[in-house]
């Protein structure tokens, strides 16, 4: 991948406090164009707070976020989105009863005509949706197919394709594989690979080491609100990652008692 280039987003020593709770206690993280940087962490490690800080929902208490070399100060997720940081949350922001096309362009419909005759450019919307979905490897029956008829993995892909189409430079994926079956997971991982090859920086949040290792270029482990360092692909084994996530010692004993199956 294109390593060595300057990161698009760089977060330095981010801290986030909620009252007297320290959710993030010094997190450093960066993403470059065309790489997949995995952020791993167990439940409660601070992953959600971290994503929300990066996507402009929360303001960090301390630390700085650099976006394309400049210090950034997003006041809303909308600002971050317009700058090119797209987040696909677990609920996907999709409406099952609406067609794929209508979901794809929800809130950002292209129009033609003017004045009282201003209308959605339905043909173009359908065409773009079909093309974008085909690029991602999904052959829709028709663009007016309801999202509710798609599988979980396909919905995830629609959400990713939508973010990419609207010019994401950084794509944050919040546990995109957590509720999926084996085959659907590999489809989503393949989609991540495609997005990365288009030069978009992917932040892949997961607690599944296997999924992360399948596509990740770099791996950062978050534990109790702190980053435990970043490793490059090939430098680290699945067991080491697993241990770091769980906080080492305890997990080793647990795993021993389970015969090394976790």
């Amino acid at each position: 991948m294109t390593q060595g280039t300057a990161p698009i987003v760089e977060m330095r020593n981010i801290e986030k406090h909620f009252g007297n709770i320290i959710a993030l206690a010094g997190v450093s993280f960066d993403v470059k164009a065309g790489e997949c940087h995995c952020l791993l962490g167990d439940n409660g490690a601070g992953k959600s707070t971290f994503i929300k800080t990066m996507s402009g929902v929360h303001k960090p208490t301390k630390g700085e976020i650099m976006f394309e070399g400049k210090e950034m100060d997003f006041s809303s997720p909308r600002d971050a989105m317009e700058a090119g940081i797209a987040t696909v949350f677990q609920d996907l922001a999709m409406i099952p009863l609406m067609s794929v096309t209508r979901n794809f362009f929800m809130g950002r419909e292209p129009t033609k005509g003017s004045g009282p005759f201003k209308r959605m450019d339905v043909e173009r919307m359908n065409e773009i949706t079909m093309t974008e979905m085909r690029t991602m490897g999904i052959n829709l029956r028709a663009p007016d197919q309801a999202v509710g008829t798609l599988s979980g993995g396909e919905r995830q892909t629609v959400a990713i394709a939508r973010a990419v189409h609207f010019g994401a430079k950084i794509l944050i994926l919040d546990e995109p594989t957590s509720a999926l079956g084996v085959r659907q997971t590999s489809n989503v991982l393949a989609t991540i690979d495609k997005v990365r090859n288009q030069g978009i920086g992917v932040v892949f949040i997961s607690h599944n080491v296997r999924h992360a290792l399948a596509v990740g270029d770099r791996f950062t482990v978050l534990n109790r609100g702190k980053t435990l360092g970043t490793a490059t692909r090939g430098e680290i084994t699945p067991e080491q990652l697993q241990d770091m996530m769980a906080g080492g010692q305890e997990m080793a004993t647990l795993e021993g008692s389970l015969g090394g199956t976790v």
Partner: protein
Amino acid sequence: MSGNEAIAPTDERLKKEGFVARMMKRPELGAIAGVILVTIFFLITADPAMFTLSGVINFMTPAAQLGILAIGAALLMIGGEFDLSIGSMVAFAGLFFAAATVTFGLPLILAIPLTFLFAAAVGSLNGFIVIKSGLPSFIVTLAFLFILRGLSLVGLKVATGGSTQLRGVRDATEGDPLAPFFSGDAFGGSFAWLAENGWIDTFKNGTPKVPGLPVEIIWFVIIALLATWVLLRTPAGNWIFAAGGDTNAALNSGVPVRRIKISLFMVTACCAAMVAIITVMDAGSTDSRRGFQKEFEAIIAAVIGGCLLTGGYGSAIGAFFGSIIFGMVVIGLTYTDFDQDWFQVFLGGMLLIAVLFNNAIRKRVTGER
């Protein structure tokens, strides 16, 4: 990485959809099927006069008056909210309009826009309370059902000095250049010409039995087409579906959900005002029972038209046909030997069937099993 060939297969389990299966997913299908069924029923049971031109106009007139309300109700339901106050709104807007023309002697060019503005203000108040409080619109507008009905009664008594009927609208609006757009029949000339050529039925003296097309039918068609165009072809339509389908998802995608919902409450109230203006000018007076229970009939027509009670799905064309079913049943029974009071039984039955049918359709669309 797994190979790409693994991700883009044409799924062999995906059956090709036929025309029938595609039609099954249209929200208005139920209403169209209903119109066909009801037509067949009356073709068999009713006097043939029902399906002559004058018979059709006879049942289309109440259908149109209800339909204007039902289309507003359908838009609002697709947007995920209810308005139970539209019936009372008809009375309240009727009072306002009659007072404007009779008591204050305003010309229609002022009275009509003022009535719409007034209705929109009440609608936005409804919407504002629903949005700000987060309460279900069902309960907020139920309150307004009583508030507006009560205000109509009180207002009528104040305006007339104790009566619950305000008369004199016809005298006040006679000769007004705008009056033909909101009352009486349109295309009188064309109908007379058709009669001269013997294409439509005439009385013995040569005047056509149907003097023209009642204006409400024209408004009904215009509003149905306009609402359909907005829903299917404009970004606002997409936002209405989105707001009703999942408020959170819509908000996260940048849809102005609050603005959309408040606007829909205003549109619904304006539909009620439209019906008020037409029916008050037609009757020449207004009374406190105007629009009584119309909110339920409008919602029933919208549901027969395919609107889901949970929002996010439905169509204006469906509400259009739902209202026609309604008109056909109300008027059609008078052409049969059945007791007219079967009407309510019929109505309840239709509603129940429609809801069951819509539920099945929704499952098909979302692929629920």
